[in-house]
């Protein structure tokens, strides 16, 4: 029971007891005597009740002040440099504890975001260095060569490097837009099966060219979902491209749409080396390309973008074991809660 309520209840009981006590001390024999007794004791009882009320009020006020002070003390110790402070939560489970819980959750979220921002800035600064470096050296070489054919080739490579950089920046933008939930006003109902079929058809020739087989078994019924068709198309295509890139040569890539009452699973499974369980968290981090020596234009942002798009839909990106290989799953609610309210 919350502490304040307990104090108030105690005060009430005490007031009642005191009234009874006052009335009880006076001997009475008739109704008239009883009425007189009550009348006589009323001022005393009222005074006692008022005193008790004041005392309890003071106790409650003191208690409230103490709890608020302790919260203020913690929040005032929090600075940009030290986010580690947390408000203590008592065992009472009252409104103050709920407030403390909320403040702590908010602090956790803020420090999580700050950490993410720091990581992002770090990795942007770090990971953009090598493409910018390649771009610079190609431009430098193009400026120095006398051979027009070589120069054209080098300039072509300058443009390609610039395009790759732009793609990285667009992906980062896409992630931050998704996190800000700005895409939600473009949500609409569409058929996930239709989308998966379209993407399977789109990527089938590419998979074949890279020596893989894309398998999609179309469910009989449509699977409607309230979401952003274009962004989910991007998320699924990122996962398919990933599977084509890292799946084993000559093996199957399986795409599946599993409908559910509340959750829809879009699964993309490959037969590549997969990702060990302890490194999956790392894999979905921005720029978290597991093999940093790999220099193709994937830039390791594919999974991070897919995850951000899943979050936009109140869903999640799961990386599971395909025994062998990687099973990437977009788990999406049929209709996200905020979108429903909007």
């Amino acid at each position: 029971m919350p502490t304040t309520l307990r104090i108030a209840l105690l005060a009430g009981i005490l007031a009642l007891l005191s009234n009874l006590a006052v009335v009880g001390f006076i001997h009475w024999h008739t109704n008239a005597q009883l009425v007189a007794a009550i009348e006589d004791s009323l001022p005393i009882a009222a005074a006692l009740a008022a005193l008790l009320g004041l005392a309890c009020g003071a106790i409650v006020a003191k208690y409230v002040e103490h709890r608020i002070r302790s919260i203020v003390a913690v929040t005032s110790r929090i600075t940009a440099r030290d986010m580690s402070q947390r408000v203590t939560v008592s065992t009472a489970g009252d409104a103050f504890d709920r407030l403390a819980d909320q403040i702590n959750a908010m602090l956790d979220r803020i420090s999580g975001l700050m950490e993410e921002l720091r990581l992002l800035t770090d990795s942007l600064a770090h990971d953009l260095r090598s493409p910018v470096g390649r771009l610079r050296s190609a431009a430098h070489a193009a400026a120095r060569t006398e051979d027009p054919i070589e120069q054209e080739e080098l300039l072509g490579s300058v443009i390609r490097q610039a395009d790759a950089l732009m793609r990285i920046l667009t992906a980062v933008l896409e992630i931050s837009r998704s996190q800000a939930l700005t895409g939600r006003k473009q949500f609409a109902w569409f058929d996930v099966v239709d989308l998966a079929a379209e993407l399977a058809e789109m990527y089938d020739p590419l998979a074949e060219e890279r020596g893989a087989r894309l398998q999609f078994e179309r469910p009989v019924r449509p699977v409607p979902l309230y979401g952003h068709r274009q962004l989910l198309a991007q998320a699924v295509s990122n996962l398919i491209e990933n599977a084509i890139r890292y799946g084993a040569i000559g093996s199957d890539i399986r795409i599946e749409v599993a409908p559910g009452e509340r959750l829809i699973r879009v699964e993309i499974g490959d037969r590549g080396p997969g990702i060990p369980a302890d490194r999956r968290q790392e894999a979905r981090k921005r720029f978290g390309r597991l093999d940093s020596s790999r220099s193709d234009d994937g830039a390791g942002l594919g999974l991070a973008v897919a995850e951000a798009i899943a979050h936009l839909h109140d869903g999640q990106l799961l990386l599971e074991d395909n025994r062998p290989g990687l099973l990437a799953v977009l788990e999406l609610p049929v209709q996200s809660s905020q979108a429903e309210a909007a």
Partner: protein
Amino acid sequence: MGRKILVIEDDRETASYLAKGLDQEGHSVEQAGNGQDGLFRATDGSFDLIILDRMLPALDGLSVLKALRAAKIETPVLVLSALASVGDRIEGLESGSDDYLVKPFSFAELLARVNALLRRREARMDPAQHRLSVADLEIDPLSRTVKRAGKKLDLKPREYLLLEYFARNEGRVVTRTMLLEQVWDYHFDPGTNVIDVHVSRLRRKLDEGFEKPLLQTVRGAGYMLVA
């Protein structure tokens, strides 16, 4: 044939780069440096195409576009924007523009889109386009059948759509992003050469066994169907 193009762009460098390039292509270009001025010039309806920057001083690009469409000015509008996310692109297209190009862009990409838009305007004015033919290639959009030199080609649905889009833009460069947007209706940048693979499949069915290839690669830009 030169056309009248209005460029509404506040960044002087981009505006003069556009004007110079389009001028070299034989178009006559007028410039407006802000939204209000641009809207004022555009309302006389004498332009064949408007290139509109999305972020403009005085009146932003999408507002200019809305005002134009409200005034029943149906001049094709190509929106240029540094806002590159998928959501931004959709928003730009849904606001009544005919095409949306993300900055920075290559001039080849811009020119290809300008030409496609101008061509579309022409096609709209000339109805009875129910049969397309390019050299010995015949396309019937109603039955979705394709014949080359009288012989029927066996195309998958998407390959047909690709070919029809190429044929409608005969003799004009079509870029990979244009194909992704127009034939697939997707607005993200794939990280692979997925479009090229489709084009080379189509090319195999279209040109193999024929002396003259119709579908050509334009280096650094895209593809072109030529008679």
